[in-house]
C-alpha cells in the first residue's frame, strides 16, 4: 500500500469521523450536565429561601438547557450507529460486555426525558414548587446517570476488568468489576467536575455580560457570586482529582502516561518537561524546557522515583506522542489559568471590588475555556489509548469495519462535517439570542391542541423565547 493510500485509509478516516462527531457531541453534555445540577441547586435555593431572583435565574438557564439538550439528542442519535457502521469488529468483539452499558445510558436518558424533563420545562405552573424542585433534581441525577454509564464503558476500554476472552471476543464475568473498573471512579469524578467547572465559567461569563451592561443587575450579581464560590471549591478539587487520575493512568496505562509526558527512556529523577517538540522518529525531545526531578516527584511523589519511558514497549504499541503531549499541556494550562482567575476573585471579593470592569471583562473572555479544556482532556485520554480500542487487548486497526472503502468513509465524513458546521452555529446563535434577552419572565406559551403545558420536547423550547 502506498503512503498516500495508507494516510487516507478507511481506518484513519473512520477515526477522524468518530473524533468529529463525538467532539461536537461531548460539548453538549459538558454543558447540560453542569446546567442541570445548577438548575436543581437554584430550584432548591428558591424553595428554601423564597427569593424570586433564584427563580428567574433558574427559569433562564432552563431555557438554555432545553436548547442544548435538544442538540444533544440530535447529535446523540448519530453516536450508536457509528459502532455499527464504522467499528463493526469492535462491536462484535465487545458487545457482550459493553452493550448493556450503552443501552442503559440510552434508556435512562430516555426515561429522564420522558418522565421529568417535561415537568421541569413546562410544569412550573402545573405542579407545586417542591415537585418542580424534585423534577429538576431528577433531571440532574438523570444526566449524571447518563455520564455514569458512558464513562463506565469508556473506562472499561481504557482499563478492562471483569471479563473473559473466548475466540477473540469479550464476555462478562463480573458486572461490578466491569462497571467499576480501575480507572472509572477517577475518570467519572474528573469528568463531572470538569463539566461543572465548564458550566460555572459559562454562567460567570453571562453574569459578567449583564453586569458590564448594567442589565439584570441583581441576577448578574447572584450568578457571579454563586459561581465564583462554586469554582472556588471545584477548581482546586479538580487539580487534586486530575493528579489522582494521572497516578491511576501511571499504574494501569503507563505507556499512555509516557506519551503524555514525552518520556522516551526509563530513568530515576525524571525531569518535568514543560515544553518540547517531541520527535517520535528519533525518540527524543527538541527544544525542551525542563524542571529537574519534578517529573518523578509528581508521578511517584518521590524525587528519586523511577519513571518508565516509551522505549520499554515495542514500537507498535506506542501511542502518538505529540498529540497527547500538547493536548495535556493545553488542558493543564487552562486549569492553571482558571485557578489564577478564581484566586483573583478571592482577592477582589475581600476588597469588595468583585465587579471591577476589567475583572468582568476577563470573566467574559474566559467563559468558553472549559469547553477547550474538556476537548483537550478528551483528546489526551483517547489518543493516548491508541493503538488500542480495548487497552492492550484489541487494536484500533482490528476494530474498524472490514468492508469499508476510502470512498465510503470520505463521503460520510464530508456529510457529517458539512451538516454539523450548519447546525452548531445556528444552535449557538439560538442560545446567544436567549442570553441577550436575559432572565425575564416570558408568558406561558400555548402549545398544540390548546393545552399550555405539555410533556417533553427536546428542541421545542427554542420557541419559548420567540420574539
Amino acid at each position, binding site marked *: 500500500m502506498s503512503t498516500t493510500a495508507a494516510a487516507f485509509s478507511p481506518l484513519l478516516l473512520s477515526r477522524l469521523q468518530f473524533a468529529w462527531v463525538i467532539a461536537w457531541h461531548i460539548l453538549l453534555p459538558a454543558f447540560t450536565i453542569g446546567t442541570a445540577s445548577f438548575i436543581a441547586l437554584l430550584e432548591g435555593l428558591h424553595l428554601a429561601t423564597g427569593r424570586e431572583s433564584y427563580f428567574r435565574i433558574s427559569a433562564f438557564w432552563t431555557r438554555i438547557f432545553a436548547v442544548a439538550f435538544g442538540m444533544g439528542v440530535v447529535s446523540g*442519535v448519530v453516536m450508536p450507529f457509528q459502532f455499527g457502521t464504522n467499528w463493526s469488529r469492535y462491536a*462484535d468483539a465487545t*458487545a457482550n460486555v459493553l452493550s448493556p452499558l450503552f443501552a442503559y445510558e440510552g434508556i435512562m436518558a430516555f426515561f429522564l426525558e420522558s418522565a421529568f424533563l417535561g415537568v421541569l420545562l413546562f410544569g412550573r405552573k402545573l405542579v407545586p414548587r417542591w415537585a418542580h424542585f424534585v423534577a429538576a433534581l431528577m433531571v440532574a441525577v438523570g444526566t449524571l446517570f447518563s455520564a455514569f454509564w458512558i464513562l463506565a464503558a469508556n473506562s472499561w476500554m481504557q482499563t478492562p476488568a471483569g471479563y473473559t476472552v473466548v475466540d477473540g471476543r469479550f464476555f462478562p464475568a463480573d458486572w461490578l468489576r466491569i462497571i467499576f473498573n480501575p480507572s472509572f471512579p477517577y475518570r467519572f469524578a474528573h469528568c463531572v467536575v470538569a463539566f461543572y467547572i465548564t458550566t460555572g465559567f459559562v454562567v460567570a461569563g453571562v453574569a459578567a455580560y449583564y453586569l458590564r451592561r448594567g442589565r439584570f443587575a441583581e441576577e448578574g450579581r447572584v450568578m457571579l457570586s454563586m459561581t465564583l464560590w462554586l469554582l472556588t471549591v471545584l477548581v482546586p478539587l479538580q487539580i487534586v482529582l486530575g493528579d489522582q487520575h494521572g497516578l491511576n493512568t501511571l499504574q494501569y496505562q503507563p505507556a499512555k502516561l509516557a506519551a503524555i509526558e514525552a518520556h522516551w527512556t526509563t530513568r530515576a529523577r525524571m525531569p518535568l518537561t514543560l515544553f518540547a517538540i517531541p520527535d517520535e522518529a528519533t525518540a527524543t525531545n527538541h527544544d525542551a524546557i525542563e524542571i529537574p526531578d519534578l517529573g518523578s516527584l509528581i508521578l511517584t511523589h518521590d524525587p528519586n522515583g523511577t519513571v518508565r519511558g516509551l522505549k520499554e514497549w515495542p514500537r507498535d504499541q506506542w501511542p502518538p506522542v505529540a498529540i497527547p503531549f500538547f493536548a495535556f499541556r493545553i488542558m493543564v494550562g487552562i486549569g492553571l489559568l482558571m485557578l489564577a482567575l478564581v484566586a483573583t476573585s478571592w482577592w477582589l471579593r475581600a476588597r469588595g471590588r468583585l465587579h471591577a470592569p476589567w475583572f468582568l471583562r476577563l470573566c467574559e473572555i474566559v467563559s468558553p475555556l472549559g469547553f477547550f479544556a474538556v476537548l483537550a482532556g478528551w483528546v489526551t485520554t483517547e489518543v493516548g489509548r491508541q493503538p488500542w480500542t480495548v487497552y492492550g487487548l484489541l487494536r484500533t486497526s482490528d476494530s474498524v*469495519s472490514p468492508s469499508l472503502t476510502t470512498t465510503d468513509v470520505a463521503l460520510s465524513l464530508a456529510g457529517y462535517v458539512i451538516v454539523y458546521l450548519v447546525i452548531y452555529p445556528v444552535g449557538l446563535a439560538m442560545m446567544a439570542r436567549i442570553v441577550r434577552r436575559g432572565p425575564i419572565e416570558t408568558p406561558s406559551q*400555548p402549545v*398544540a391542541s390548546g393545552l399550555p403545558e405539555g*410533556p417533553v420536547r427536546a428542541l421545542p423550547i427554542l420557541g419559548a423565547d420567540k420574539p
Partner: protein
Amino acid sequence: MTVLPFDFVPLWTAILGFAVFYYVLFDGFDLGVGIVYGFAPDRAARSLLMNSIAPVWDGNETWLVLGSVGLLAAFPLAFAIILPAVYVPILVMLLALVFRGVAFEFHYRDVEHSTFWDHAFSYGSTLATFAQGIVLGAFIQGFQVDGRHFSGSAFDCFTPFSIVTGVALVFGYGLLGAGWLVMKTEGDLQNWARRLGRYCFVGVLVAIAVVSLWTPLVQPQIGHRWFAWPNVGFLSPVPIVTALLALWEWRSLNNRSEAAPFIGAIGLFLMSYIGIAISLWPMIVPYKFTLWQAASSPSTQAFLLVGTLFLLPVILMYTGWSYWVFRGKVRADIGYH
C-alpha cells in the same frame, strides 16, 4: 462464565420486535406528515401540520436509538454485519433526520429562510424514509457475509428491489401521516388529508402487491415457506386479513370516519410486519444467522433485562399520558409556538 438456565432470546426478540414496530408506527406517522407537508395548500396549513406532531416527534425518534442500541445489546452479531452493509442509507437517514429535526424550530424562527426550512423538513422526512426503505429491502435480500463480517460493498444495498421497498415505505409512512392528519384536523384540511391518503393508499397497495410477489421470487426459500403445503393453509389468513384491512381502509378514506384511516394504516403496517417476520423467521441476519446464533451472552441479556423491564413500562405509560394531553384536533387559532 456462568451459564444461566434460561433462554432469554424469545423475550429479547419480543422486546426488540416491539421497539422496532413502535418506531415504525410512531416515527412513521410523523415522518409521513413531513412527506405530505410539501403538498400542503398554504402556509397556515403547513403550520398546522407541524403543530400536530411538534410535541411528540422527538420522543418518537428516540426509539430509533433504543432500537439500534437494543439490537447491539441483544443481537450484536446482527448489528455488526448489517450496519456496515447499509452504511450509505444509514448515513443518509441520520443526516436527513438531523436537518428535519432542526427544521421544526428554524421554520418558525428563521423567518427569512422559512422556505428553505420547509424544504429541509419535507425533503428530509422523505429522504430519511426512503433510506429506511432501502435498509428494509437490503435486509430482506440478505447480505454477503464472510465469517462474522459483512464482506460486500457499501453500495450493494442499492438494488431495484430495495429501491421499490424504499418507495413503498414513502407511500406507507405517507399513508400513516395522512391518517394521523385526518384524525387531528377538520374541515378543508381534513378533506385534503383524505385525498392525499387515497393517493398514498394506492401507492401502498401497489407496493404491498409488488413486494409480496417479488420477495418469494428473489428468495426461493421465502416462496417455499409461504406456498408449500401445509403452510399455505396456516398462513393464508395473513393475505386475507390484509385484503380485508385494505378494503376497510379505502372505505374509511372515502367516508366521514375520523380515526379509522389511521387505525387501518396501522393494521396494514402490522400485517406487513408480520408477513416479513414469517418470511424471515428465525433469521436475524437473513439466510446466515438465526436469532440464537447472533444473540449476546445470557449474562449480557439478563443484566440488561433487569433495568429494561422496569424502565420500559414507565416510559410507555408516560408516553401514553403525553399523547392523552395532546389529544383532540389541532386548532388553527392556537399555534404551538
